[in-house]
């Protein structure tokens, strides 16, 4: 049985983010749901995995948060049934097991991310948000984060209503980063990704492009955090 939460007061015209939480510990389910609702999201809860496949088909959820250790069919099986019906709903697995095989198994059976209990609230929220965004970006030809929108078909970017002028490589780099919102992108990944698009690029060149992007994105309230020696993380300031 799915416990539906009352719809929050959301800005008109913006559909609220809807999350289905599958967790069989009532206490944990309750506090996790409250944590997610504090972000203005709509959270439905269920304790068992059996009804999940049907409800994700009926309701337009943005994210499924799935505990591995459920009574009845477990999280892996639930996920398998969801994926079996062709759903590409983002799935965040919650696991009390930190065995690497479990993570691998979860990701292989179609989870998009996993969190190990006990997790920090901020981490749960951050991961959920990243998954929701990636999902929303995946659908159409528009990538967005905060005020920033990238229209891939028209090859135009906007901050609010203001068009943002981007050089070729800046465009490629930003597109790559936006398509992986919430994830760290390694420099090597950027190089590999944009080299496919427009020839080879050096480490230093990437740094120059990123630093230009950084100042261009400032008005959008976006920040490119440098991960020393590794890569970048695009985040809302």
């Amino acid at each position, binding site marked *: 049985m799915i416990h539906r939460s009352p719809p929050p007061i959301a800005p008109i015209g913006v559909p609220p983010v809807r999350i289905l939480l599958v967790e069989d510990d009532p206490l944990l389910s309750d506090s996790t749901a409250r*944590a997610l609702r504090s972000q203005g999201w709509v959270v439905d809860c269920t304790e068992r995995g059996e009804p999940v496949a049907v409800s994700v088909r009926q309701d337009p959820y943005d994210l499924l948060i799935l505990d591995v250790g459920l009574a009845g069919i477990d999280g892996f099986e639930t996920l398998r049934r969801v994926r079996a019906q062709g759903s590409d709903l983002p799935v965040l697995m919650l696991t009390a097991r930190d065995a690497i095989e479990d993570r691998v198994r979860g990701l292989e059976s179609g989870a998009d991310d996993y969190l190990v*209990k006990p997790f920090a609230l901020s981490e749960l929220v951050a991961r959920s948000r990243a998954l929701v965004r990636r999902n929303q970006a995946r659908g159409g030809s528009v990538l967005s984060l905060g005020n920033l929108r990238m229209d891939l078909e028209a090859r135009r970017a906007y901050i609010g209503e203001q068009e943002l002028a981007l050089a070729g490589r800046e465009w490629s780099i930003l597109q790559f980063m936006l398509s992986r919102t919430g994830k760290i992108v390694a420099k090597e990944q950027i190089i590999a990704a944009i080299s496919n698009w427009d020839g080879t690029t050096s480490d230093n060149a990437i740094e120059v492009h990123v630093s230009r992007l950084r100042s261009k994105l400032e008005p959008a309230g976006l920040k490119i955090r440098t991960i020393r*020696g590794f890569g970048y993380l695009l985040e809302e300031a």
Partner: protein
Amino acid sequence: MPLSDHPPSARALCARLRFDARPSIRRSLVLWLVLPLALLVPATAFVFYRLALAPALDSLDHALDGTALALERLVRLDNGVLSLVVSRELDSALRADRYDDVHWVALGPDGHVLAGDRELATLGGLPSAVDWRFSDATYNQQPVRVALHSWTCIPAAPGRAAAQCEARVSETLNKRHGVAQQVLAAAASAMLVEALVLAMMGWIAIVRSLRPVESLSKDIEQRSPEHLGPVDRPGIPREVAPLVTALNDLFARVVTASAAEKAFIADAAHQLRTPLTVLRTETELALLEDHPPQLEGLLRRLHIATTRAARLANQLLSQARAEHERHNSAMERFDLKQIASEAAEEWVARSVDAGVDLGFELESARVDGHGFLLREMLANLLDNAINYAGHGARVTIRTGASPVSPDCAMLEVEDNGPGIPVDQRERAFERFQRGNAGGTGSGLGLSIVRDITAHHGAVAELLDGPGGVGLKVRVTFAPARSKT
């Protein structure tokens, strides 16, 4: 890997230096074999000596007696008058002896000397002769053996009683001493050889029968603390077999008990996670939501305590898991650079939350190891660094060739936090030793790191951080085996 309190070499050294008062099988075997031997061998030699000497002396006595008998034959009775005529040649024949001085005397019935050495007739302390008898005496200040022989020299006749004559022959003791010495030497050497052979055989028997016990204990002593498999020794003698069986039973029980204990710890830690997650989420929610300002401190402390408990549960679980992994999976080739890159996603998020600048300096560094354990080691190092270095700190993870030897792979995690004073660094590896700098550490992190490095034959060192500030943990791995 837990180390025993005293290295075995030191223990062995001390054992050798002082007398060991504990009961010893070897000592009691020696006591019960060699001591009786030491008493019995001289006793046997003595009896042997006496038994062998007596017939030798008897035969010498009888030779002496022969001379006395010869004297009897020489005494004549003519018309009731006794006479003994000894020519010079006969006398020298009677006294002929290669080694000893021989003296003789023949006495008539009234004790008067018929012929021979008069001094012998007056020799005191001799028993009266009845037929024949031997005695020791002193003649001319020399100890002598005397044969006394009496016979009826005047037969009874009507009106006349029978009368006894006596012959005394003495000789010095040279032959007797010679015989005694020979017999003694024979007895002593035979017994000595016997004693030596017995002692040697006894020693060999003791050493041989104790050897299985010794090699068994050496075997067990040299085992690593983790090795609790049964003792398998095909050559174990029947007498030691019950001990081995008992030991194996004990090993089996210890293995079961320790497995049960580990399973319990893992299970307990596992079960703790859900309530800890609830507690943590609730405190974080409470901190986010409106709350009376006087509760702020309480909520913060509650949050710190919950975070610490959560980390402890995680580390207990990871330790149990590491233990399992150690015994149940084989080593593979890994690149530390790869492992560190994979950790980036998770740890960058955490360091951002903690206000720590996490950086990477990754070069390829190949090692043979267990993937889970290597990841776990890195996780604990990063967890420690982020925790203790605190807000605003710089933490750098570095992989590559060791600065000491280019053949060795190395992993470093350094921070510019408060560090650990040099004199406390060794202790920092012990379980539940937490640094002074507050933090939410559980005190298990570095102990897990040391267990894992020990298992990989690697070395973990605590060094000064960059520019002498903070802490740098360097793990140096043995060169990976060349593999094509």
